[in-house]
């Protein structure tokens, strides 16, 4: 080997040469293409096309299906007639009918959780310049939540040695049952309601308030100081935010003159000047303030960022559910998403006219489709908050509630009185 070959071969360090491959732009993804307008990128255009396709496909399906509510009653009378022919007692038919309705109602929060968790993961991923789940399921990780659910089902259920075993077992049950039962008076569309209660509004708030007990039980029974702190925090927070949340709905009730949820939604039909829908959110000042207070208090009630103090991950590990695993943890998780859905359904019913279309000529779509669309948009807002804001501190949270939110909601009630006096 001559002097020259040695020089050319070894003058440059070997790793320096081998890593020159990284200089090729396609070997590794550098996000410098973010300089360009996203619309110049084919992936964005394709994504927008796919989204438009899904939306129009969903709209077409809803149009083909039509109103579901009015078809239910004839179905029941058909079953009754058949039972009379066969000599089956009518109370049996009524019982089976109620059970079927209950099963359908139970499916609502469960299916919602399956969908919403996947949606949350995809949306957060795209907000954070990543892809999220991509492998399980046929399309963009669509079945990831199912896989996670199966995993939670077959996981070992660990109960800590120093836990209060019975209360530890009871806590997730106490949390999940009100979360499901609270869906009973929700009008999912025209005549599409499980129990058309005249005190529907009071019922929903009363029942969903019970879940606080379960969270306190979970925090207390786990025998863990972080859990206990989480339980204490949630007791304070949920009870406090229950007040402005309820008070913010009172103007709506005053304007509507009823507590029946489907009646409240139905009263918002029609348009001002043939264009602006008569939704309660469009009532000057009162409607917007009531909606803002209700939205903020709902985010706090569902323990989501910026109000996720009971389960503040960086402070309290996982808060009240630190010591829960497997299916018990899944029940807490499920109840969180059930409450998100419930809050969004209530907001859609109280402030966005339930199943009323936003513009007169859009009435060809059935009411349940509009209700669903409004609810999903509001759920998106919840997800958006979560991945944008930092977390409040616990004392600031209380100050914000008692010194700002509660007075505002009380003033709003007075303002609603003035508005009604002006309108009459």
């Amino acid at each position, binding site marked *: 080997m001559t002097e020259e070959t040695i020089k050319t071969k070894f*003058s440059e360090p070997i790793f320096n040469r081998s890593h020159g491959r990284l200089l090729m732009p396609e070997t590794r993804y550098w996000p410098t293409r973010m300089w360009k307008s996203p619309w110049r990128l084919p992936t964005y255009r394709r994504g927008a096309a796919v989204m438009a396709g899904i939306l129009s496909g969903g709209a077409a399906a809803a149009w083909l299906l039509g109103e579901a509510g009015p078809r239910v009653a004839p179905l029941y009378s058909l079953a009754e007639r058949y039972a009379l022919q066969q000599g089956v007692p009518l109370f049996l038919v009524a019982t089976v009918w109620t059970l079927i309705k209950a099963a359908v109602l139970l499916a609502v929060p469960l299916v919602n959780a399956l969908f919403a968790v996947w949606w949350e993961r995809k949306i957060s991923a795209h907000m*954070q310049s990543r892809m999220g789940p991509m492998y399980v399921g046929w399309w963009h990780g669509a079945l990831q939540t199912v896989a996670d659910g199966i995993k939670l089902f077959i996981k070992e259920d660990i109960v800590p040695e120093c836990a209060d075993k019975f209360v530890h077992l009871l806590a997730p049950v106490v949390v999940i049952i009100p979360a499901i039962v609270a869906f009973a008076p929700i009008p999912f569309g025209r005549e599409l309601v499980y129990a058309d209660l005249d005190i529907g509004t009071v019922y929903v708030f009363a029942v969903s308030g019970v879940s606080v007990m379960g969270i306190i039980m979970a925090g207390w029974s786990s025998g863990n100081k972080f859990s206990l702190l989480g339980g204490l925090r949630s007791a304070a927070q949920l009870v406090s935010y229950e007040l402005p949340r309820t008070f913010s709905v009172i103007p709506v009730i005053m304007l509507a003159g009823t507590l029946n949820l489907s009646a409240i939604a139905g009263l918002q039909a029609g348009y001002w000047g043939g264009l602006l829908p008569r939704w309660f959110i469009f009532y000057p000042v009162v409607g917007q303030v009531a909606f803002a207070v209700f939205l903020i208090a709902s985010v706090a009630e569902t323990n989501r960022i910026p109000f996720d103090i009971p389960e503040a*991950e960086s402070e309290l590990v996982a808060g009240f559910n630190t010591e829960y695993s497997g299916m018990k943890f899944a029940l807490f998780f499920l109840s969180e998403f059930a409450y998100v859905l419930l809050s969004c359904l209530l907001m859609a019913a109280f402030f966005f006219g339930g199943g009323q279309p936003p513009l007169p000529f859009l009435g060809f779509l059935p009411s349940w489709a509009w209700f669903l669309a409004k609810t999903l948009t509001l759920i998106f807002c919840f997800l958006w908050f979560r991945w944008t804001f930092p977390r409040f501190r616990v004392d600031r949270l209380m100050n914000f509630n008692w010194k700002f939110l509660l007075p505002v909601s009380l003033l709003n009630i007075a303002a609603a009185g003035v508005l009604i006096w002006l309108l009459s």
Partner: protein
Amino acid sequence: MTREIFTALKTDQMFINFGPQHPSTHGVLRIALTVEGEVIIKAVPDVGFLHRGIEKLFEARNYSQALILTDRLDYVSAMPNNLAYCLAVERLAGIQPPLRAQYLRALVSELTRIASHLVFFGTFGVDMGAFTPFLYAFREREMVLDLFEMLCGGRLLYSYVRVGGVSADLPAGWTEKCREFITFFKPRLKDYDTLLSFNPIFRDRTETVGLISGARALSWGLSGPNLRASGPGYDVRKAEPYCVYDKLSFTVPTGKTGSCWDRYYCRMLEMGQSAEIVLQCLDALAKPELPPGEIMAKGVPKMLRPPAGAAYAHIEASRGDLGFYAVSDASPAPYRMHVRGPSFLNVAILQEILTGCKIADVVAVLGSFDIVLGEVDR
């Protein structure tokens, strides 16, 4: 009256082990907290869970082998550790590295500072409950790590700065890639400000928490951005310029109140300054006076035996004033090597400023100090 109510409402004190296994201690730090409700009565930081005896290990290796140990101190920003060690050994042995190597050292130090502060930005956001900044920060950090991988093959532990110079010159195309990164990175700093720095919730949580006056910071021996946030503008790069920092123009951002937010924002401003320094270094390295290839001092022996004596060298590392004190007895291995780790000194003040805070403030204060346990415990 209020006092009476508080006495009547006095609750039991509770002892909480905050760590060593906790999501927000950034490693294996344990803080023994005594709390009354949410308020902290007493906080005792307990270090040593990651102790590996690195200072003793130095004594069993020769000078070039010992270099790899320095990477393991502050593993989030390893380049300055190499640099401080090499400066101490060079001072001990009387070696003068070539100018090009010095520019390269400054360049990689500043890139490391950006990468390290990005980790701080992300993890501090996570501590405050904002997860999205974390992924934005790591997207940019990934680009710096790619640059380092092209330069020396390592992505976390580099051993790039060697006694007498650096291990490799810039590969072909690296300068363009680095400029591309800086052009991409500068507008991102504005994004970070809109996303996190000036978020009202974030400011509310950090501006009134963990206040340290300038005198107190100095008396506790704080350094780096933690000190400068309190007011004193002490920066080793300005006070005792090493490498080529006297030839580079940059400012040292300082804070006013020494709150968590000031400590945070000092680092954000420092990233912008580091980006400027990187550009200046790239310009200088392109000049013909610094021909490529002159990266090692002539005549550095394979087995270094510095004359008996002692030398101290300190630099402005990402987390503060990092110093190496080397004692030689003219043998191939150092007789004693002491490390002045900035994180270790920064963690000491916690016991004083955590008292009276809320539990939620512990993560804010701890996160704002940006400690790395590899350097605290050594």
